[in-house]
């Protein structure tokens, strides 16, 4: 390992996103899907990127993986192990993907080849990055990986085709392929959203175990605050293309400083809470392409005043490691204002 790489490991977060913006041209106009998002994930850390549809969370993840296709435009700075990756050529990306950063998607059926046995697909994921590995060795390693992710007995199940597996098992195969080359960063985009609740619990346990075992930097993209509470160390909340709050998981759930985060937490039905009227958030998030002056949450916010519409509030510290993009952030954390 080179000295630079060693320094890189020590000094830089495994994944660093700075001022990321993503635009898509739609009918002669530009739709801004992500408007200057910054966040980072360190080794051994799980960060949940939380938001509703249209918040920009999934587009941010795709941009981090170099997967936003033209005519989409990506700007800002994304660093993996300290190295800038935006603007890399496709062949450079191919050597990075899987080896440094890997991704698991919501629907494993669209990512798996239906006509190949699962062991072959995992083995190919290994050989893509290291052609010196013999087919035989790759196969052995693939079986071991399948065993590790809980496809058991792996020796027998390895010859199954994707359609012979349940949804949870298919997601396990995707995870095996993602970790096949020991990446530093694993991005999981709604990995359990399509699964039943009992299966979801199993897959989350697996991700948690692998993250600790391999010291992964895990970026979990989800809309489900229950999942976040169970797995994340830190939380980044996105709304309408911007990060509106970030902080340690306990701070976000118990001392949220942004009115949106507070409202979202109050509106979620809880298994452990008796029947009662849920605190709904009026209105809906802005449509893609809809330009809202100032704070995008202002039209739905009980605290909004003229200052909020005048300009976009910046992310500012409200406590240690805890930042919010709301001009009332300090007063909300201090308990002087309750949205």
């Amino acid at each position, binding site marked *: 390992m080179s000295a630079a790489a060693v320094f890189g490991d020590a000094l830089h977060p495994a994944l660093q996103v700075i001022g990321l913006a993503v635009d898509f041209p739609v009918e002669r106009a530009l739709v801004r899907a992500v408007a200057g998002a910054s966040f980072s994930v360190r080794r051994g850390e799980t960060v949940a990127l939380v938001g509703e549809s249209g918040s920009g969370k999934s587009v941010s993840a795709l941009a981090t993986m170099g997967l936003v296709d033209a005519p989409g435009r990506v700007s800002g700075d994304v660093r993996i192990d300290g190295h800038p990756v935006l603007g890399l050529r496709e062949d450079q990306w191919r050597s990075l993907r899987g080896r440094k950063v890997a991704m698991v998607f919501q629907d494993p059926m669209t990512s798996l080849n239906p006509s190949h046995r699962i062991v072959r697909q995992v083995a190919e994921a290994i050989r893509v990055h290291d052609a010196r590995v013999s087919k035989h060795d790759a196969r052995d390693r693939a079986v071991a990986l399948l065993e590790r992710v809980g496809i058991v007995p792996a020796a027998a199940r390895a010859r199954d085709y994707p359609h012979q597996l349940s*949804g*949870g098992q298919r997601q396990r195969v995707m995870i095996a392929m993602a970790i096949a080359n020991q990446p530093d960063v694993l991005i999981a985009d709604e990995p359990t959203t399509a699964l039943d609740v009992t299966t979801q619990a199993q897959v989350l346990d697996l991700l948690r175990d692998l993250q600790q075992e391999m010291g992964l930097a895990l970026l979990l993209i989800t809309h489900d605050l229950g999942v976040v509470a169970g797995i994340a160390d830190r939380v980044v909340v996105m709304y309408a293309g911007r990060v509106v709050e970030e902080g340690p998981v306990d701070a976000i759930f118990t001392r949220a400083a942004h009115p949106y985060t507070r409202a979202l937490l109050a509106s979620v*039905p809880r298994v452990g809470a008796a029947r009662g009227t849920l605190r*709904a958030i009026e209105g809906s998030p802005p449509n893609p392409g809809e330009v809202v002056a100032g704070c995008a949450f202002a039209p739905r916010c009980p605290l909004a005043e003229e200052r909020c519409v005048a300009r976009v509030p910046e992310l500012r510290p409200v406590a240690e490691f805890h930042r919010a993009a709301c001009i009332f952030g300090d007063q909300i954390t201090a308990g002087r204002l309750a949205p």
Partner: protein
Amino acid sequence: MNGVGVPLLAVEELVQRFPARGGHRVAVDGVSFTVAAGETLAIVGESGSGKSTVARIVLRLLDPTAGRVVLDGDDITKVRGRALRRVRPRMQIVFQDPYSSLDPRMTVQATVAEPLRVAGRRGEVSTRVREVLDLVGLGPELCDRYPHELSGGQRQRVGIARALVLSPELIVLDEPVSALDSSVQAQILNLLVALQKRLGLTYLFISHDLAVVRHVADRVAVMHLGRIVETAPTEALFVAPAHPYTQALLSASPEPDPEVERQRRRIVLRGDLLDATEVLSGCRFRPRCWKATDECAATDPALAVLGGGEPGPARHQTACLHPG
């Protein structure tokens, strides 16, 4: 509201078999329940539980292999033609996905008016459409809009307005908030509860989401592989679940509270549903159950009242040899 007089909906010993490779697959296997007027019964289950098949049979969209569906005392299982057209307006459905369930070429006005036109009540269209749009919180200015011009929440309100327009007694809600953004879910759930109070509606609420169910249901029936394995008034079920499957579902439902999640002792089930579909004798949950004994392989448990006594809609019942 429970158990007085004739229930609005009674389902008796429903069975639904579908042809499958090498024979048939039993999607629903002897399901019975009642729903009183003005009440919400939630049917909870994971994929493959048969909950959506039950909903389709109740709505007469599917002919059951066996069993009866009784609406307000009348057996509607076999009604056809004119008699069926008289029954249809009394039961309506709200679908999961307001994106795919609305016709993209029809305006809000046309979408909501369609059931009236089909029922031959064209004369009432203009006043009635405005009335139901108002009920669901949509202004008349939305009448000329198309689905793509609406937000997800507005679309689901249109779906609810369309279900209300013929003044039904029973509404089947099939995962009505599962496709919606979290910040919009609560709006729609509160709206459904308010409409029920105001119009005296009866709901059959199909869902996989226990947290949602706890907030809207009076009673809950938990389905597993085509059977009801537990049924109880909502609070009793959540406070003291008796069937191991219900306990596992509850323990696997994530709670948006890091402290609760850290303290949680999760019941992790072995394997998945596929392992249970091949069980031919005894309890079908047995391959995944941590309480299973030899007795469970020999006996197929039927629903029984916890602590004994006469069955009834308000009683806590479970189909397990080792409940609690």
